[in-house]
């Protein structure tokens, strides 16, 4: 099976955005575009600038606010959560990706504003105080300088911005699969009658997981 190319990933991302808009989940979005820099080709949300994803020493709330303000996302979900999509190809091979889900830390605060409920009744009963918003990142990095079996898997998922949380994942993941994962676990039950039609044949990569990591608890995509 030929490995997915930039254009496959691009059309998958665009179809995903379209699906989210059609389902009424996306309040706003930025187009996903392909950009060439030398032998590298990136597929990223149009407002991305390098350095944009440097997670420096700020609180999550501050991070979220600044990403929101600068429109650093592909999708803004109906509850304020941000979805970020970045792929980088070198000589037609996937070198890295970052797919991030950044929930709004303000979610629980809708309570002080009743007009919010009146304006969007669908949402009124969907806000649940028992939930904790957790940022999730699916990262892939092929470079030998970065990869360390068991410690820094090529494909991994990070929960809650914990620096050393790198749960091994079997392979790189497509934008549509990532979005399907997020919507299934964090939105489907909150929104009755949700119909999300993601691409039926998303790009798939060959397994990249190391044998050592296969023996650990890991996620299969």
């Amino acid at each position: 099976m030929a490995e997915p190319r930039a254009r496959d990933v691009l059309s998958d991302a665009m179809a995903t955005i379209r699906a989210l808009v059609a389902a009424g989940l996306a309040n706003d979005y930025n187009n996903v575009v392909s950009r060439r820099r030398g032998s590298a080709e990136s597929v990223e949300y149009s407002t991305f600038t390098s350095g944009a994803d440097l997670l420096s020493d700020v609180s999550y709330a501050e991070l979220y606010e600044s990403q929101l303000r600068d429109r650093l996302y592909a999708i803004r979900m109906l509850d304020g959560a941000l979805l970020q999509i970045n792929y980088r190809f070198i000589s037609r091979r996937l070198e890295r990706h970052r797919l991030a889900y950044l929930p709004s830390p303000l979610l629980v605060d809708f309570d002080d504003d009743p007009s919010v409920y009146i304006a969007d009744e669908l949402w009124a009963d969907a806000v649940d105080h028992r939930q904790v918003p957790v940022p999730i990142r699916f990262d892939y990095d092929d470079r030998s300088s970065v990869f360390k079996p068991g410690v820094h898997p090529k494909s991994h998922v990070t929960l809650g911005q914990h620096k050393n949380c790198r749960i091994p994942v079997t392979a790189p993941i497509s934008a549509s699969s990532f979005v399907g994962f997020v919507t299934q676990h964090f939105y489907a039950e909150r929104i009755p009658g949700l119909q999300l039609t993601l691409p039926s044949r998303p790009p798939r990569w060959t397994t990249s997981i190391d044998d050592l990591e296969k023996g650990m608890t890991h996620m299969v995509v």
Partner: protein
Amino acid sequence: MGGNVQTVTDGSPETDKLYVVRGTNQKPVASDALVEALQAIPGLVGHLYVGFPIGGVGANRQPIDVLLLSPEHGVIIFDVVEGTDFSGYTERQDDAATQMIAKLMGYKELVQRRKLTVAVESLTFVVGADASVSALDETDRVATTISLPSHLSALRDPISHEAFERAVSAIQSLNAIRRTRTPRRPSKSDSLGARLKRLEDSIATLDVKQGQAVIETVEGVQRIRGLAGSGKTIVLALKAAYLQAQHPDWRIAVTFNTRSLKGQFKRLINNFTVEQLGEEPDWENLRVVNSWGAPGGPDRDGLYHEFCRENGVEYRDFRSAKNMFGFEKAFSGVCGDALNSAPNPRQVYDVVLIDEAQDLPPEFLRLCYSMLSSPKRLVYAYDELQTLNGEGMQSPESIFGESARGRPLVTLSPEQDLILQKCYRNSRPVLSAAHALGFGIYREAPRGASTGLVQMFSQTSLWTDVGYAPVSGQLRLGHKVELARTEESSPRFLESHSTLDSLVEFKIFDSAQQQNSWVAKAIEQNLREDELRHDDIVVINTDPLTTRQNLSPLRVQLLENGIHTHLAGVDSGPDTFFAEGQASVTFTGVYRAKGNEAGMVYVVNAQECHSSARNLALVRNRLFTAMTRSKAWVRVLGYGPGMEALKAEFDKVVEEEWRLSFRYPTQGELATIAVSNREMSKEEEARVEETKASLAGLIDDLAAGRLYKEDLGPETLEQLQRLIGNGQ
């Protein structure tokens, strides 16, 4: 001196007499005398501002005591002297004139070949005539009550109406205040974009009423009523800024219901203060805050939250308020509770200004009242017709209640009760159509009902209050009447940019898909050919429950055509109804659209507004709100029999040439209408359903002989007969 280009003016600013707008300055007695003296001069027309905050830039600010703007004289700045010592007058006169000239020179429209097209003069006014005055001659420009008329004649320097209008606009600095988005540069002279530009350029001055509402300070409660689009928000913002300029040590709060107003208020206040005073507002003393509020910093604060904090009362968020008092009465419940828990609340504000008071419960207004020190300067503004339910808002007597001695705490004198009749947003056709549909004026009477009306003012005078006049018949209960908007209340320039039949259009489609395709094409044309910008267009779905599913397919169509859209939703911050800085068309449910306006409004799935098993008033109100978002054009679209019936009502409006022709209901009919179409809360609805169901069961049992009426017991039977028997 004078302008040379003829532009179409809208008849404002008013120049038929001398209009006085009374603010406050440091010389009340002498100023009053001056005003009186000026009013006594025959033929003197124009605008007279007492204490309007105009200053130079920065530290050299000199307040202007009294300012006369007259077509015969241009600008005359009065240096008012309380008492008899007028020494130093030349310096004061020169400073004031220089500052004013410098300010006006900044307005290109007032400058021709480096000279102002409007004369600027200073005149000192001394009340007490004494020998030292008579020793002066006319060139010294010191006038007394007696010599005032001759001084004024000497200063005659007529200017064109256009220059006058521009001067008023410059002085009020409204252009600067309103300037928020990038200027338009249409290339075709008659595109929709060009027409919008002309429209926006005309609305550049406060009318006298608005000016009065801004500047006139009343000791006590003040109520400002008006239609949506009558400029209430601007008036409140300017008023807040003005009060701070006059009283920098006062604690002032501005509050509202809809979050998106916060950004608007801050921007208007900031622009005005910077423009007029050359510095930023003091946000410590002038707070723009939410009504409810929450813990977590000044940005999330609100007046209710502050009350709780200041008085050690338990604060409740919406969730717990909902659990305690129900969805509808959540806010009123917690405010009432808080008031009861704090019998002697701390009075932390000198002025509180409330916008959208019709959407806030009376308990909240009372709460604000209690946070004010004497003389309780509470200014509340509301939309007379936002709810259309015939009651308008409660009277101040009933909102604020009574004192311990049983006397109403608040009664409004005429100066305290301002009505802004002019609607600056909607043209006559748009507003008349919206009213006709909102009230169901041309709706067919359902079987068994004597009228098709959905709601109606129980006080006929409300119609004139909001700018209608009877053209024929009588505006009385039980009588036929024909109402039309006056030219005064609906300036014609709002409609003259386009043909009447293109302002409001109703279209019926065969299906949602057909409707969506049409809208998508129309929007594309708006953007690609009509020179409209993305933020000139708003697409509204009136039913909150169907908004997302109705609007999504249309958004997808536009996405596929490369047109960016966003859905204004719960996550939108205060300022993000329009995606500022983005070329994106706004899609929204009707409630989130409140307080916003756009040149081109598409109301989709309007068939959802034609009728409803209950809550008919509610759905018609939604249609009214949606239609009145438009600054210029409205397209009401839908499909199905409901839409056909709605269009039939609209066609009648056009046939009647935008007049409302109907028989005013009788007292009895008013009561019936109010009851059968009333807005019901979800809880009420549920209860009604339940009761209906069990009654149906009872009827069934009686009919089938499973139950006999004797089983119900004589008392119950009697009560039932009484309640139902007389058709009450």
